[in-house]
């Protein structure tokens, strides 16, 4: 089973990201479960959402405390909330930021992860480009598909189109594809910790 924990703030589409991920996994023929965390719900407050993906029926309902993948939609949470708590040493990290791991002050910790498992993606910038707003959730899902290979980018795109019909879905899908392709191209370089920065 792959367990994913997504961190962000209220209003940033954290719960939606987990739901989309589960829909994409379902399209890929897997079992999936997405649910929000149980904390205060208000704009701007730290929010966590979870997604489990497995080859068999998922029964447990407990919060994800030992994730295989951590997605951080809002980099201001990095030194505020224990976003990496319980993360597997073989796990994956996706962070929305235009800065490098060193600039984020995370190099010491993140350099211990396997090659290609840490992706810093300018997801907010990609969001602005496609949607005129720093929407990071759908680009990060594209990055997730590229970095982990756990789901197909086509399935991510179809989940987005299903949830958001019309041009909103199309633009979100384009943003997810761009982030996906960016991470794929950086992975080709394979420089260990991955700084998928826009040129």
């Amino acid at each position: 089973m792959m367990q994913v924990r997504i961190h962000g703030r209220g209003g940033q589409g954290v719960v939606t990201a987990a739901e989309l991920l589960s829909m994409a996994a379902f399209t890929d023929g897997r079992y999936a479960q997405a649910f929000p965390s149980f904390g205060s719900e208000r704009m701007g407050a730290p929010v966590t959402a979870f997604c489990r993906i497995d080859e068999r029926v998922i029964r447990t309902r407990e919060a994800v405390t030992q994730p295989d993948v951590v997605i951080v939609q809002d980099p201001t949470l990095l030194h505020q909330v224990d976003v990496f708590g319980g993360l597997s040493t073989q796990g994956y990290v996706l962070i929305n930021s235009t800065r490098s791991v060193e600039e984020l002050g995370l190099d010491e910790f993140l350099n211990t992860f396997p090659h290609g498992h840490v992706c810093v993606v300018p997801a907010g910038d990609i969001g602005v480009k496609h949607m005129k707003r720093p929407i990071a959730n759908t680009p990060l899902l594209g990055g997730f598909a590229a970095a982990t290979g756990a789901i197909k980018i086509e399935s991510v795109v179809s989940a987005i189109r299903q949830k958001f019909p019309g041009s909103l879905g199309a633009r979100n899908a384009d943003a997810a594809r761009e982030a996906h392709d960016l991470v794929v191209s950086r992975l080709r370089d394979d420089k260990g910790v991955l700084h998928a920065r826009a040129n």
Partner: protein
Amino acid sequence: MRAQIEGSQAVAEAVVLCRPEVIAAYPISPQTHIVERLSRMVKQGDAGRCQYLNVESEFAALSVLIGASAAGARTYTATTSQGLLFMAEAVYNAAGLGLPIVMTIANRAVGAPINIWNDHSDSMALRDAGWIQLYAETNQEAADLHIQAFQLAEQLSSPVMVCMDGYILTHAYEPVDVPDQNLVDAFLPPFSPVQVLDPSDPISIGSMVGPEAFTEVKYLAYQQQLRALALVPEVAGDFERQFHRLSGGLCTPYRMEDADIAVIALGSVIGTIKDAVDELRLEGIAAGCVKIGCYRPFPSLQLRAALEGVSRAIVVEKDLAVGMGGIVSVDIRMALQGSAVPVHTVIAGLGGRSISIASLKRMVIEARAERLNEPHFLDLNTTVIDAEQSRRREQRRAGPVAEQVLRAVNAIGARTT
């Protein structure tokens, strides 16, 4: 069709498949997504001739349905927590009048302190209001139970609550097979009421009943609800034949054939308990679990049979009777009357606290070693409790408890999510 959808969406679609004629509801988290979707479906003309009434309160919602149901309409509402308590008077009336209303409870804690997250305090508070109470383990079961609920309600002339865990189920995306309309139509015929307000054939419903007949009316209600003990499994059986999957029923055992210790619970935590049972089995502990699918009427005999042979039972319940302890465990002790099997009460998951496999396994191991308190509070933060109790001993004007505990928890766990 099988789809990856939100629990609330699955329930709304299942309700519409049952062809309700009147829906009245007042939105309250975590029930909101269900009624929002229903109101949209009605507005868009996707719910036949169903009328959706946007009322001013929960009390009004159920009161409207009492009228509509008495006039012969198939009726539905949904609520939770404080909303259920606000309609409490009408909840008793719907049952006392024998009206087959179906209501979803998106289970949530009851304040104060205010908390919008899941536990069973709300539906437990009204467990003896005369409604049949069913509890869903998964979103598939939540959807299926609604289809069964209309069947049960209308056969028994009794209202039915379908209880599903707020957020944990209502807001979870997981695969659900929403059945085809023609299969539901074949399973659930149009509503044929045993009593109906009809101007061309006038009757009275809701007479005042004095001491000369009140006991007899109540006794008949008691007998009528006990009929559900036969009907619930029958309807679940019919459902399985029609839809080819198991949903509902009175109680369902899991790995109980050779179990030495049983964990009993209601609702979505059963899934987590099953995983804990599997892990305990790998560690050589013969654990099993029993799901209570129908809590009212209480299936005493069936539970007694399901627990045959165990040397110990643990009831994990998401509620608390202040001044008593457990609620479900008291019923289980009744069911096991005369047997020597010790029954532990474990209070868990209050106000949305996550119930982990690790905590459940620890609970079973501690119970076997006779180290559980009675009642036992799962994952209780004793550091915070001790600090607050000593603080309150030291000063008379100690202030409100909730705010002090929040401050203490934040000071201790500032860097956890």
